[in-house]
């Protein structure tokens, strides 16, 4: 069967099971948009290429399938650089197809030419520039293989315009060997000797903590983790990327560690004698000052990316492997110990943990008569939403409050920008999440600063009938920066004031075809949420005018030891 390169590309995506893609056409990618008309793939036309990338990420994070975005050359391609960087940091499988000028024009500074494979080399797992039309099916299959196996990540295929118009004889690779990837061999199983050593350490520990990262979700290991926690009775912390991997309602859940983590989660890591790190990478936002992090703890570090082992903190037992497979091996190794308990008596440890939980719960001052408290908005949203709602956040104070105050009990119910900290992530990502899981309620909890970066994608949501819900915690500031200026720059506020009513978020929402709602007082919050929840035929935006002076607590200042965690001023300072 003879196909044009463009037809072969679309057919290759169909062969990969792609059912939806996000994109925006332009000159160099024009030939590829023609066969889309006849394709089974749903194409969602975005208003800015950054939106296409984040939508594909949101889609990938809730479905586990790779997200696909298509853009044109030059500025189209550079506009999706941020989503690629974001997906690289958070290990999200993302496939970006960018148009490129014709092969004969490459290197001549042609119109809308950009060396996008060069630009994205450091922020993709791999990228390809297609120079031969016969390579198309093989490269597409290889791109999906690389993006979705091992440690997942973004890939980019750069597609010159003349290749799209060249004829080729269709074929489809049927085995990994045909993909021509002689240097790509992701590990899966953990080394049984190391697993046995890990089991020994677990059995000997008196203050163990399961330090659970995003890799547990990527490897679909939530069930295995639950079994490990149940078998051992060890407390569990879930990082920002792992919220939902272990139910917050479980008695062994201590919540989130890190800069704005739960006091008990932070301090449990700090005082632990054994950290069992599963798919986490000792990020500086979790460890605080690394030389002071968990000083008495031995480390079991499980990661599918061997380069993570020992990158930040030396592991006593470092196991390269898929988290689900390694946890299952670990369960067998612990189970094989025969009669008697598999761990030490953890009752003294739990008694200490419970004491911390009691002494330093999450706290905010919810006195009557004041302004709307952002934490309270999150609580009310949570209580009025279906149990399996997907929550999406941007980056900043609102993100931390969402992570702290929502109760995550299901994997793949939390979508946010972790490693890269990409403001403006929430609106497009929640659209992608809703496309991936139309059966679920999708609430974006956003900040006013973030919202203004990517709000135009709500036009896409209205046009494509994607009924997402956006809660803007509108404190009229770039709130997290404001908090740092208040705490660390002597209240010298530099370029952080935005305004509560410029723009008018309700009018803006309505102009984009959404329902716009405003809540100005604490009494407005409940009814506004109720009204928002009653809308299911279009996007809805709620402008919550929140207390501008509210800060996120607890907090570990950047570069400080986790021992120096600061709790809310109303709480009695921790005794060390």
């Amino acid at each position: 069967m003879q196909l044009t390169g463009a037809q072969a590309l679309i057919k290759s995506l169909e062969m990969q099971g792609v059912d939806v893609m996000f994109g925006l056409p332009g000159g160099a990618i024009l030939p590829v948009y023609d066969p889309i008309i006849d394709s089974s793939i749903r194409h969602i036309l975005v208003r800015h290429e950054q939106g296409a990338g984040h939508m594909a990420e949101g889609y990938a994070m809730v479905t586990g399938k790779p997200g696909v975005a298509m853009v044109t050359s030059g500025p189209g391609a550079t506009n999706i650089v941020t989503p690629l960087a974001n997906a690289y940091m958070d290990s999200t499988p993302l496939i970006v197809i960018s148009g490129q000028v014709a092969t004969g024009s490459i290197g001549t500074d042609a119109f809308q030419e950009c060396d996008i494979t060069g630009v994205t080399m450091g922020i993709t797992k791999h990228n390809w520039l297609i120079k031969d039309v016969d390579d198309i099916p093989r490269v597409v299959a290889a791109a999906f293989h690389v993006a979705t196996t091992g440690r997942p990540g973004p890939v980019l295929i750069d597609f010159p315009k003349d290749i799209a118009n060249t004829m080729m004889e269709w074929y489809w690779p049927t085995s990994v060997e045909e993909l021509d990837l002689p240097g790509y061999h992701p590990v899966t199983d953990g080394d049984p000797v190391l697993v046995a050593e890990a089991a020994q350490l677990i059995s000997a520990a008196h203050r163990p903590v399961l330090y659970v990262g995003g890799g547990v979700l990527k490897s679909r290991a939530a069930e295995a983790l639950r079994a490990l926690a149940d078998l051992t009775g060890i407390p569990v912390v879930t990082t920002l990327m792992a919220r939902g991997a272990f139910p917050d309602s479980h008695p062994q859940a201590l919540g989130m560690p890190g800069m704005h983590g739960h006091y008990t989660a932070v301090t449990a890591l700090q005082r632990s004698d054994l950290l069992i790190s599963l798919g986490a990478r000792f990020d500086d936002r979790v460890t605080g000052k690394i030389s002071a992090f968990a000083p008495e703890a031995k480390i079991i570090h499980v990661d599918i990316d061997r380069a993570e082992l020992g990158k930040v903190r030396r592991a006593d037992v470092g196991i390269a492997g898929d988290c689900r497979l390694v946890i299952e091996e670990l369960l067998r190794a612990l189970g094989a110990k025969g009669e008697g308990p598999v761990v030490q008596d953890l009752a003294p440890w739990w008694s200490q943990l419970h004491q911390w939980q009691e002494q330093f719960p999450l706290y905010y001052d919810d006195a009557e008569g004041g302004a709307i408290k952002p934490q309270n908005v999150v609580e009310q949203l949570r209580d009025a939403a279906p149990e399996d709602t997907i929550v999406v956040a941007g980056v900043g104070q609102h993100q931390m409050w969402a992570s702290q105050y929502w109760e995550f009990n299901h994997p793949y119910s939390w979508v946010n920008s972790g490693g890269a900290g990409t403001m403006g992530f929430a609106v497009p990502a929640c659209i992608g999440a809703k496309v991936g899981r139309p059966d679920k309620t999708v609430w974006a909890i956003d900040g006013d600063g973030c919202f203004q970066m990517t709000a135009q994608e709500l036009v896409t949501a209205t046009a494509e009938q994607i009924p997402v819900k956006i809660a803007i915690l509108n404190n009229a500031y770039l709130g997290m920066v404001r908090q740092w200026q208040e705490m660390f720059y002597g209240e010298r506020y530099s370029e952080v004031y935005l305004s509560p009513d410029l723009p008018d978020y309700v009018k803006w929402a309505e102009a984009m075809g959404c329902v716009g709602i405003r809540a100005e007082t604490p009494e407005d919050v409940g009814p506004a949420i109720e009204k928002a929840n009653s809308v299911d035929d279009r996007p809805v935006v709620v402008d919550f005018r929140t207390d501008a002076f509210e800060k996120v607590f607890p907090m570990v200042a950047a570069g400080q030891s986790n021992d120096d965690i600061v709790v809310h001023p109303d709480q009695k300072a921790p005794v060390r």
Partner: protein
Amino acid sequence: MTPAQLTALAGGKSSAPRHHILSVLVENKAGVLSRVAGLFSRRGFNIYSLAVAPTDEDEHFSRITIVVDVESAPLEQVIQQLDKLVNVVSIGELSPGDAVERELVLATVAVGPTERSQVIQLVGVFGGEVVSVGADRLTVMLAGRPEKIDDFEGLLEHYTVVELQRTGRVALPKLDRH
């Protein structure tokens, strides 16, 4: 100067950097060298020298010999990050004691009537060659162990060196005699 900087000057940092040799087999594809070099720069690893050439007749693969300054990062981390590059097929680590290393230098030296015979003699002692002769210049070549090249270069500095180019070292494992 801070005490920390003084300590660094007095201590290990002032001694010669510790080098390790990585012999990296890569797919011979466009952009591979850029991927390897880019990885080193963005991860903050230092390259001391680098040599690259195809390894087989079909030119499917190339071998990159990288001398890494392991003061800049643990060797293990350099290897693991390199191994993640999709085009990197295999990585061999050669510690200086277990490898045969060679390097080549070309040097053009300005020579008057008296220096001409001295330089030719020096080249002869080291087992190098005179590869080009001009009216008042000589271009000489020497291949050998990097330390030998260092010595040769040091002695050439007594003359007027117009241009000098070293290749960076290439290396293979030493063979087992048993």
